[in-house]
């Protein structure tokens, strides 16, 4: 946990340090320091060369840098692929390596999904959706379009299209989860139990239903005013370590 420096500004700092420290801890992942050092050495040379050719802040320069780092480090660290470009990470246990580009996209038939948490917040409902890769090593975008659907198949809230921003590489049997944040449903009363429909880039969708271990109602987010549109948004999909 972060230690607050001695030059105190305000008594509140100690409390905020604890809060920020706990929040920031989410970002810590296992790393392969040797691979990162090697990638940095190569990336530095590449950066210098590309910087001379295209300017130090060019996207081409950044892409070249990341590609160089990824290629060198591919033997020992995981890599996110697709979307806005290679997205290096540092946890071989969480994200298996793929450098071929031939890994197929995950389709609905390859995945199962269930709702493992459904939490209340003021004006919002926050669900945790857990995906399981059933039978195919495949790629799934980190951000997906969700919809809240009732038991009769009525789409109550449909999310907007999402831009490509990184991809997870799922191995068979691995799990990943994401938060789905919903707000302000002012429509007709839902029929039957709610589900979440998650749209995939394969032009199909996977439906997440209540986990057998989840108690309590799956209620729609409360109406806060008809002048404000309902919203639904899926946060970044993240692998579950150890699966």
């Amino acid at each position: 946990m972060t230690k607050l420096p001695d030059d105190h500004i305000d008594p509140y700092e100690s409390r905020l340090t604890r809060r920020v420290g706990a929040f920031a801890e989410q970002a810590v992942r296992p790393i392969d320091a040797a691979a990162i050092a090697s990638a940095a050495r190569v990336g530095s040379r590449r950066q210098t060369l590309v910087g001379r050719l295209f300017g130090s802040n060019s996207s081409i320069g950044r892409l070249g840098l990341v590609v160089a780092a990824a290629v060198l480090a591919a033997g020992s660290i995981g890599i996110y692929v697709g979307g806005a470009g290679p997205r290096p990470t540092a946890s071989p246990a969480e994200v298996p390596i793929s450098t071929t580009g031939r890994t197929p996209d995950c389709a609905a038939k390859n995945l199962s999904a269930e709702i493992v948490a459904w939490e209340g917040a003021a004006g919002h409902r926050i669900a945790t959706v857990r995906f399981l890769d059933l039978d195919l090593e495949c790629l799934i975008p980190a951000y997906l379009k969700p919809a809240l659907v009732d038991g009769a198949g009525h789409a109550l809230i449909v999310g907007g299209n999402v831009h490509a921003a990184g991809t997870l590489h799922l191995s068979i049997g691995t799990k990943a989860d994401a938060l789905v944040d919903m707000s302000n449903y002012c429509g007709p009363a839902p029929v039957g139990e709610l589900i979440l429909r998650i749209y995939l880039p394969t032009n199909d969708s996977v439906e997440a239903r209540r986990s057998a271990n989840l108690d309590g109602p799956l209620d729609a987010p409360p109406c806060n005013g008809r002048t404000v549109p309902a919203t639904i948004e899926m946060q970044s999909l993240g692998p579950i370590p150890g699966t």
Partner: protein
Amino acid sequence: MIDDGSIRAAVARAATGDEVAFARIVAAHHDDMARVAFVVCGDVELAQEAVQAAWPKAWAKLGSMRDADRLRPWLVSIAANEAKQLIRSRHRRWLRETPIEDDQPVTPRAGADPESRAAILDLANALAGLEPDDRTLIALRYAAGLTSDEIGRAIGMTGGGVRARLARLLTRLREELHDDEIA
């Protein structure tokens, strides 16, 4: 964690191109850089990307590092800058405002920190309302634990200016997070 003497030796060797020594620096500081980048950008994967992009810059400029004691502030500020650049280039946005009722039951996310998910979302929302430069100040101070002078050197401000700006941010965050009680 390696001691100060070892890190000074590692910096000296790494500055001459010793990759093993540089790996020791990576091992010692990567997590801090990831924490700082995450507070700045609000996205774990983007934060990791920022740190990955920061290391080649650190490698390239390590030779100009005259004082090994300033290594950590220097590295975390590089990570913060990379995170800010990635936000700009991707036009990323943070979590939407999501007020949490005090009386609503919330459960911590499995495998996450002891802070409840509601508390984490509250903080994420409060940070989302700040400008990237202000999030950088918060990150360098409360995720990296830098003094106001160290932050000032890193971002080109005086220590006094950093303290004044942090004081305003503290007032704002205390109010938004309803942290009226001082622990």
